[in-house]
Every structure is written in structure tokens, then in C-alpha cells.
């Protein structure tokens, strides 16, 4: 069952130098409970697509449905169903972990007791136990990231959007975060839509990869699938497939789809 589907989703920015087509037409289907890796070189349109799907940015073309809600007609429904963890996180450094979590829950219209209970539950679950009364600025990088994810999970969303969730984390924290994402999906059936620059992360975590370049999807498949198709075999490094697909290497030109 598709939990996200888009048709021709596009966004053009106006600039002084003329229109910039950041996203030119994304046709995408995400199944419920899937962990989808959304990859692409810098400037490919990953974050713009994510911002459209989370209602932060109105599309200039196309349509999309997220968790049964039409993106254009029912943005409030989309917001209720989704959690979004931006690259920069989004907590005030001077506020305590508890206050940020409870306020976040109440922004999603939980009652005060519900939000307080959920904050305790999530901090225990995400290894933030005992940090509830600390200011967010005192957390380590890995703890901060888990707090950001807890913020996105307060209202038990059906879909969790993660924008480059492990950027800046040490290897141990990255591995912990991968486990956490797998656990969220296993325990709650949450659909996870994540963008990343790290191919090892995409390879280890995602059921399926969608690769975008210059604002359109240029490849779509399981990691093994893409490696077989573009890099010569299922055991090839994903990096080779990625470079062949995005045309950023000396890979055989006939293996690279034309990215218009």
C-alpha cells in the first residue's frame, strides 16, 4: 500500500538570474513501513522535495498524497500524520529537554499529561533517560540527534522524514542511530523517508533507494538491484553505482541514464 505518492511534483524558485528549477517532476511511490533512502549529489533537489512533502514549501507543479492526505488541499492532515527531523534539528539550546518535548507534543495537540508521559516514554526508549531536566545545549552530538528524533516521534507519526540524520556524528553514534531507525520501523511500522550523503548508510539502512539528480529521479531500486544494474554485480560498492547513475565518473556512459 502506498503511503506517499507523488506525480510530477515540481518546484521552481524565482531568482534575479531567472527561474531555477530545483525539482522538475518527481514521480514517487513509497510503501507503508518502508525505509526509503533518498540520495543525490548536492543541489539535486533532495531537501526541496522533503520540504514540499512536509508542507514547508508549496510545490509549483504536480500533486502528492501523504498518509492519505492531499498535500495541497489538506496540509494540516499531512502535518498531523508526519514527523520531520531537519538537518539542523530544531531545539532551543536554553530550554530543557523536558520542556521542548512537552511543548512539541502539545503543538501536536496532545494534552499536558499525555505529552509528559510520552516525553518520559521516549527519553527512556531513546537512551536519553536522566537528561529530561538538562538544557538541550548540554547534550552530546549523539544525544542531541536522538532528542531531535524524539521530537519528531512525540505524536507517533505514520511517516518519519529524516534529513541527513547522521551528519556530524561519530561512527558509534551513527551505528546507534541506524539501530534506532530500524527499531522504530520494526516496533511501530513507521515509514521512514531519509535523505543522506553517506552511501554506506543508505546501503545498510534503506530497503529501497531513490536517486535524484538535477531535480528528477534517475534510478530506483534496492541497493543490491542498483549495484547489479549499474556497477556490475550485487557485491560491487554502492559508490560505483551512484557515480555511474549520476554521471560523475568515468563509468561507461551507456550505463548512465540520461538525466535531463
Amino acid at each position, binding site marked *: 500500500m502506498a503511503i506517499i505518492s507523488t506525480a510530477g511534483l515540481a518546484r521552481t524558485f524565482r531568482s534575479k538570474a531567472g527561474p531555477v528549477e530545483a525539482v522538475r517532476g518527481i514521480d514517487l511511490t513509497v510503501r507503508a513501513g518502508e525505509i526509503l533512502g533518498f540520495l543525490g549529489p548536492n543541489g539535486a533537489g533532495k531537501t526541496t522535495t522533503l520540504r514540499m512533502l512536509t*508542507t514547508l514549501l508549496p510545490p509549483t507543479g504536480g500533486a502528492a498524497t501523504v498518509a492519505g492526505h492531499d498535500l495541497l488541499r489538506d496540509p494540516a492532515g499531512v502535518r498531523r500524520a508526519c514527523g520531520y527531523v531537519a*538537518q539542523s*534539528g530544531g531545539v532551543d539550546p536554553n530550554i530543557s529537554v523536558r520542556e521542548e518535548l512537552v*511543548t512539541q507534543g502539545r503543538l501536536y495537540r496532545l494534552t499536558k499529561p499525555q505529552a509528559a508521559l510520552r516525553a518520559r516514554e521516549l527519553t527512556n526508549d531513546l537512551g536519553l533517560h536522566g537528561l529530561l531536566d538538562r538544557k538541550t545545549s548540554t547534550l552530546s552530538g549523539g544525544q542531541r540527534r536522538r532528542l531531535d528524533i524524539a521530537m519528531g516521534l512525540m505524536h507517533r507519526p505514520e511517516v518519519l522524514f529524516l534529513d541527513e540524520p547522521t551528519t556530524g556524528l561519530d561512527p558509534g553514534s551513527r551505528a546507534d542511530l541506524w539501530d534506532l531507525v530500524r527499531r522504530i520501523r520494526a516496533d511501530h511500522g513507521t515509514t521512514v523517508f531519509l535523505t543522506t550523503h553517506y552511501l554506506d548508510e543508505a546501503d545498510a539502512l534503506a530497503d529501497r533507494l531513490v536517486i535524484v539528480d538535477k531535480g528528477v529521479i534517475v534510478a530506483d531500486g534496492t541497493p543490491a538491484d542498483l549495484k547489479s544494474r549499474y556497477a556490475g554485480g550485487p557485491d560491487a560498492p554502492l559508490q560505483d553505482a551512484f557515480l555511474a547513475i549520476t554521471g560523475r565518473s568515468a563509468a561507461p556512459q551507456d550505463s548512465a541514464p540520461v538525466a535531463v
Partner: protein
Amino acid sequence: MTIAPLLSDTALIFGRYARQTLRSKFQILFGVLMPLLYLLFFGPLLTGMPLGSRGSSWQVLVPGLLLQLALFGASFAGFAVIIESNWGVVERMRVTPVSRLALLLGRVLRDSALFVFQAVLLVLAALVMGLRAPLAGILIGFAFVALLTLSLASLSYALAMKVRTPQGFGPAINAMAMPSMLLSGLMLPMTLAPGWLNVLSHFMPFRYLVDAVRSAYLGSYATTTMLYGGLVAAGFAVFAVTVGTRVFRTAGA
């Protein structure tokens, strides 16, 4: 959207920012410093001067200082949004179902509460300096401070969401606040001005607010001055909150 979620969302946002203010004594008291300095070191210069007004010079100066407090305090409110934008807080709130109007109202109501509190401190200091004015007039003055803060803070947040850098925001606000202060006759009444300046000042909306508060401080409530002041303040507030909500609803990349 129905009214109940709007009210509870507004209370939630107000609470968040009110707690933020209460954590900082500096923020609570700093805004009152500039008008207080004017009161102490400029006010005494006016006591013997003919200001073309009934009543004492304090009844002319204090209304001006109250609106100066609101003008400078509220205009710079947007700085907080620039900082929060950089932390990602604004965006994180905008992906929740919270009412867009509440995101604005919660903030500007906190600002109104803060600047009315500072206005009370200023009036207490002015009473020590020699101000005597009817209580009703003083309360009307606070209402104008609240309404002007609401308006200017809304526009300030809207501008901050558009400009997004302190380097762009600070000079833009200064460029608007200084002429507003001078042309509205905050320090000295515009009735002292030569004809051309007096005419020019009538195009500055804040002039009507200052005149109204001065009228209130003299105990004249049922006057056309009060009527114009009230209408301009209310109209400006409706305009500013509309603009602010629009920006909070649509602010993109």
C-alpha cells in the same frame, strides 16, 4: 479553523516565550533603560518651557516616552525569530498542525505583556519625577502601548522571516524607527513645529497615537484626537497581524 484550538495554541506559544523572557532579567529590564534615561536627563529640561499644551511638561513627555518604548522595543522583536530560524525552531514548529495565527499571536502577546510591564515601571519613575495624570488616562496609555507593540512586533517578525540575517534586519529597522520617532513628535509635540513639518507629520501614523495618549493624560477622553488615535491604532493592528500571519503561513525557503 475553530476558535478553541486557536486559543489553546496561542496560550501554548505565549507560555513558551513568556518563560523564555522570565529566564532573562536583562530582557525584562533592558528595554526601559533608554526611555528612563530620557526621563531623567531630558525631562527636567522641559519643565519650564512653553510646550503649547495644558498641564505639565511631564504630561507631554511621558506619553511620548511610552510610545518610544513600544516603538524601539517591538520593532526589534524580530531578532529573536532570526536566531530561532538559525536553530531550526521556526521550521520545526511550522511542520506541526499548530495554528499559524497562534505562532504569531503567542509571540506578540508576550511582547505586549513585556512592554506594558516596562511601561508601568517607566510611569512609576515618572511619578517620582513629578508626573501627575488621571488614572484612567494612564491606563489608556498602557492600552496604546499594548496595541502599538502588537502591531510593530507583528511587522517585525514578518520582516525577520523575509530578511533572515541580522545584518539586513538591524539597519532596515533603524531606518524605519528613527524617522518614525522624529516625525511623530514623540519628544516634543508637533504643534511647536513650523507648518511644513507639522503637515508632514500628519502622514506618520504614530503621530495620532502620541496625540491621543497626551490627550488621555490631560483627562480629555471624548475628543476627536482620541478617536483618530484609537482608529489608527486599531487599523494598524489589524493590518500588521494580517501581514504577519500571511508571512508565517507562507514563508518558504
